[in-house]
């Protein structure tokens, strides 16, 4: 059994990955919506998104809608694989009695 993914396992990052993983492959979510779903603060979100982006697990896209800046976040293929692997690890741990 592979070990846990230390980047994804942290509670907020796990919730971010789980939320983005539930989107369609090519879909992304606005930063404000993600923050609202997770009930996290701007600072907290920025820290954890930064860690996930650094690991290559998420892609962050910034653009403008009219004059308003918009930040969109998506799980990358690497991130999706890492998340699925981590979920499998958690399931194996529960089933195997760890």
């Amino acid at each position, binding site marked *: 059994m592979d070990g846990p993914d230390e980047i994804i396992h942290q*509670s907020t990052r796990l919730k971010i990955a789980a*939320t983005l993983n539930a989107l369609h*492959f090519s879909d992304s979510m606005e930063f404000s919506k993600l923050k609202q779903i997770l009930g996290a603060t701007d600072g907290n979100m920025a820290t954890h998104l930064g860690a996930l982006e650094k690991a290559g697990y998420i892609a962050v896209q910034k653009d403008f809608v009219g004059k308003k800046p918009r930040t969109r976040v998506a799980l990358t293929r690497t991130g999706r694989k890492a998340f699925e692997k981590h979920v499998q690890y958690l399931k194996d741990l529960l089933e195997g009695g760890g």
Partner: protein
Amino acid sequence: MNVTRDEAAKALADIDKATDKVIELKGYHHGAPHFIVWGFVWIFANTITQFWQQYTAHAWISLLAVGMISSTVIGILQGRNAKPAASSMPPGTSRKMGMTSGIVFAFIFCMMWIAQPESDRQANAMISIIFPFLYMCGGIWAGWRLFAIGLFTAAAILFGFFYVKEWFDLWMAVFAGGSLLAGGLWLRSA
């Protein structure tokens, strides 16, 4: 890094919760345009019935046709744009939803055939009140917003039927149609 069984169980529960939330939001966003379309149909059809009674039959038939065609097209486009994901709906869902709509319309037809409403007002209320109760049923599974739209609309229809006499059709346009339209916009903003 060590992960205990309790931590693993909590993590999996958090994942399920996050996934459910996204599925709920997707449901809201898919439902929103249908609510908006049917809101407009109810507003226009009831307004015409109230002010231009001679056009009632033509208005309802053509607007119901517009609503059904629009809903079908929206459903097809939503199905086409959907790409597979870990939590996507199982194959055949769109077809089953279409069949469900057909069964609901068949049920309405049978109910009207059996009950033979004595007035247009009774027929309007009977048909209109079926949908909010379906929304409430759906809301139990899909999210509280849908339930709230259904509850408000059903209450408005009942109030209008029993207490609003002459302006019933306009009442239905504003409160039944309006609540669908407002509900659709509310779902879209979720």
